[in-house]
């Protein structure tokens, strides 16, 4: 391969002569005149860098680099309703300084050469120059645009060793000329389309619109810029160019023979235009502007007319193809255009994780699924046509950098945390530096109001509980180093079992070391291959995992939809059925209708397993949970709960009949094959139980706090119900908005839990606010003031919370 060097580099086209620059390549889009327009009109305040590349002292290639602020959030359509408020909180959200190799304002090669054989060495030298240039400029990313698929593999071989990764670029629409004249083109259309096309061209007769093709249009530049801004501002698709009046004026100055404008005038006023470039082989439809207030805007299809007239001009001028550009594909497909996907290569200046995160984000966001087709040039014998899934899979696989048969291929592919970090939204594993009081200390030492703990009664910092844990460590040491079945049972564990048995109003109980494990141990033991398990769809993950581990047959019913449950029961006669439900659903703070379940149980004769983790200590006369609250504890076959919430410790328990407990104690793998609860945890749970049993006043305070806070949120304007338990699900309706709002609240010293898919559907993403008995009114008021501010910010930036919260 030839070795090329960057022999000349400048930041203005004035520094290089036309004679030198224009003979260094073949693509007219890179000629000095074209580049001058972009530079002189100062669009987007680009920082330019023009390169000439030499091979043994002969100039053989040229490259167009520029640094631009690229707001990648514009490529993600799902953000369109909430981007304004996210930007209010985080003005630089997904906005990066990008050093690009390409053509600003149009699709095409940013690098070309006098002979194809220089292309790859020219790309290598240019990419190396970009890396050092990005260091000097402090650019965040390097981006090489618009690589055609046919060249992908060769480019990849050059660029991947330099740290670039491929990703989807924008699909380009092209219409290839195969007609003698425009009439023939119209005849080639299907009859329905032809009728539409002819109707669209009938502007003068129908609407009195004057249609002209102007090569002298400089005087229209200010009006063109204004109409172009109309389109740009209302664009639903990606758009970042900020064209101005100078841009349109300069094009005529620099490209008198190579540009023209199709204008639509009504009563002497410009109401629409299509600005086009004329290349050596191609006719390029570049910029569109229209007056949306024009009285016939709705009825006269000016865009269709302008694009048809562009086809006509391409044919008249005898060009090989019409370049229709990116986005807004439907009207281009109407013309008969071919859609050709392009690839980008990206690289972060310093961080390979960010390179990968951006490559994956662009690959997922930049293409519109329905618009992607793979051209014949990249089809292979074993893969004659690709759909969008195969296209994405192809690119992700290239980014993975490992074989599909690698056992860790899925690990390579997992990129969500890196993508959130790139967006500045990674919110998991926040670090706190104090116990969980009503406020917690952040790493800067400031007090943060804690509205995101499951320590509902605030006992994990209670002196009685803390003292009991310390005393237990003094007496028993730190761990039990063995199964409860063998050496892992202390007198302390047995005392806890006795107390829990009485507390749960069941004949027997057993302990496990975590709540998650308790459900796994119990369900995997109780469920047999023939058992039919019926689950509420919002049950906790540990319940689903327990069922999966057991391998029984499972069906889910919609959340608290007992009519659907009954229809399943009706057609499941003869199956041994176990119904499993949370009593309090931890994400949304809703309550299972246990009396309704008990009634069905009496009718259909199934077994009932209830996870009371979020209810114990909180509901019921003695704090035994929701079943006690509803007066149906005796009808529940198995009660499960955890010590890690109101009990302020760690571990879990099952309370049930002696037979059931005895079975799980000897068959429940999660119970037997795991070391028992550490003494400190068992002692803390025992001490917490003392307080729970005496704690009706605390429970009352907890419910009062919840009512106070929920009422305060309603008064601000949030749509929510007063929940039956101290968990408030505040729906924001969008995962990215939720994370941005969460971080905003955290900066303002309020901690809530963001809840996201898969825990809830995306439309229910929002906050899970949990109250504690130990919150004082001043802390709640401080938090409410921040929620008020948040509400005003969200609604004043055009996001409809009402819509999100009532959908």
């Amino acid at each position, binding site marked *: 391969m030839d070795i090329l060097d960057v022999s000349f580099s400048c930041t203005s086209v004035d520094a290089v002569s036309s004679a030198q620059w224009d003979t260094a390549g073949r693509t007219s889009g890179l000629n000095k005149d074209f580049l001058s327009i972009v530079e002189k009109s100062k669009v987007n305040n680009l920082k330019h860098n023009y390169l000439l590349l030499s091979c043994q002292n002969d100039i053989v290639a040229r490259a167009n680099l520029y640094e631009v602020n690229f707001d990648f959030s514009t490529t993600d359509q799902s953000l369109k309703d909430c981007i304004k408020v996210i930007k209010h909180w985080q003005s630089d959200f997904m906005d990066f300084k990008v050093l690009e190799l390409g053509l600003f304002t149009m699709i095409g090669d940013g690098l070309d050469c006098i002979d194809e054989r220089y292309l790859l060495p020219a790309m290598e030298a240019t990419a190396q120059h970009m890396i050092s240039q990005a260091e000097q400029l402090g650019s965040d990313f390097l981006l090489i645009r618009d690589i055609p698929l046919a060249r992908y593999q060769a480019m990849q071989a050059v660029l991947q060793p330099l740290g670039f990764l491929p990703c989807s670029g924008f699909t380009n629409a092209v219409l290839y000329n195969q007609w003698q004249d425009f009439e023939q083109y119209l005849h080639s259309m299907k009859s329905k389309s032809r009728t539409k096309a002819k109707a669209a061209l009938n502007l003068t007769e129908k609407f009195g619109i004057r249609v002209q093709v102007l090569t002298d249009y400089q005087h229209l530049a200010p009006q063109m810029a204004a109409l172009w801004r109309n389109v740009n501002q209302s664009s639903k698709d990606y758009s970042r160019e900020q064209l101005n009046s100078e841009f349109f004026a300069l094009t005529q100055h620099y490209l008198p023979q190579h540009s023209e404008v199709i204008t639509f005038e009504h009563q002497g006023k410009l109401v629409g235009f299509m600005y086009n470039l004329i290349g050596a082989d191609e006719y390029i439809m570049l910029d569109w502007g229209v007056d949306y207030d024009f009285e016939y805007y709705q009825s006269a299809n000016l865009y269709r007319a302008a694009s048809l007239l562009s086809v006509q001009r391409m044919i008249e001028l005898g060009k090989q193809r019409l370049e229709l550009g990116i986005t807004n594909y439907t009207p281009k497909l109407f013309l008969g255009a071919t859609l050709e996907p392009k690839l980008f290569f990206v690289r972060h200046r310093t961080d390979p994780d960010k390179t990968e995160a951006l490559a994956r984000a662009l690959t997922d966001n930049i293409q519109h699924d329905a618009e992607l087709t793979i051209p014949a040039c990249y089809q292979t014998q074993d893969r004659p046509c690709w759909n969008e899934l195969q296209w994405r899979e192809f690119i992700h696989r290239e980014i993975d950098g490992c074989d599909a048969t690698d056992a860790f291929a899925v690990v390579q592919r997992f990129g969500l945390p890196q993508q959130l970090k790139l967006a500045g939204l990674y919110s998991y594993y926040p670090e706190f530096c104090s116990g969980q009081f009503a406020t917690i200390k952040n790493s800067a030492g400031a007090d943060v109001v804690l509205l995101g703990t499951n320590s509902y009664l605030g006992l994990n910092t209670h002196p009685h509980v803390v003292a009991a844990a310390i005393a237990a460590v003094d007496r028993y040491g730190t761990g039990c180093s063995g199964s409860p079945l063998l050496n892992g049972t202390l007198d302390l564990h047995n005392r806890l079992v006795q107390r829990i048995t009485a507390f749960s109003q069941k004949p027997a109980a057993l302990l496990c070391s975590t709540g998650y494990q308790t459900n796994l141990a119990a369900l995997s033991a109780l469920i047999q291959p023939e058992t039919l398990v019926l689950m509420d769809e919002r049950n906790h993950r540990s319940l689903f995992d327990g069922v999966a581990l057991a391998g029984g047959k499972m069906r889910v019913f919609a959340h608290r939809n007992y009519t659907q449950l009954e229809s399943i029961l009706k057609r*499941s006669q003869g199956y041994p059925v176990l119904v499993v439900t949370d009593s309090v659903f931890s994400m949304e703070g809703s309550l299972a209708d246990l009396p309704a379940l008990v009634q069905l149980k009496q009718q259909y004769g199934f077994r009932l397993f209830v996870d009371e983790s979020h209810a114990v200590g909180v509901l019921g006369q003695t704090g035994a949970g929701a079943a006690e609250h509803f007066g149906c504890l005796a009808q529940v076959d198995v009660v499960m709960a955890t010590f890690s919430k109101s009990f302020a410790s760690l571990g879990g328990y099952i309370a049930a009949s002696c037979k059931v407990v005895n079975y799980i104690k000897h068959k429940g793998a999660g119970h037997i094959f795991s070391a028992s609860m550490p003494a400190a945890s068992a002692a803390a749970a025992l001490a917490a139980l003392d307080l729970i049993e005496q704690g009706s006043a605390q429970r009352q305070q907890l419910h009062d706090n919840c009512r106070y806070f929920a009422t305060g949120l309603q008064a601000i304007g949030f749509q929510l119900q007063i929940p039956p338990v101290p968990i408030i699900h505040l729906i924001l309706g969008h995962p990215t908005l939720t994370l941005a709002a969460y971080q905003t609240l955290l900066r303002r010293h309020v901690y809530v839990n963001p809840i996201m898919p898969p825990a809830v559907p995306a439309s229910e993403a929002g906050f899970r606010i949990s109250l504690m008995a130990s919150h004082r009114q001043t802390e709640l008021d401080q938090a409410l003031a921040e929620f008020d501010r948040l509400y005003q910010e969200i609604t004043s930036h055009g996001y409809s919370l009402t819509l999100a919260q009532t959908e």
Partner: protein
Amino acid sequence: MTITEKIIGLIQRTAKHTQGYAITAQSELVNQLGYDSLKLMQLITLLEDEFDLMIDDIHIGELRTVAHLAALVEEETACV
């Protein structure tokens, strides 16, 4: 209404990604329509409600497209 049409109706009520797609018999449940194991189980329950049948679990792992679901429902209803 055919079985496939009924199934597509149920999918429109439950799928994660339905925008931008015309759901057809060839639509892929996981890759295109965004079903995960839980969503798929919800769909199975709805199918069983709609067609009043119990689908054998051993078939669930083989479901990839809407057409597979339709074939399964046809097979199960034929057995009744």
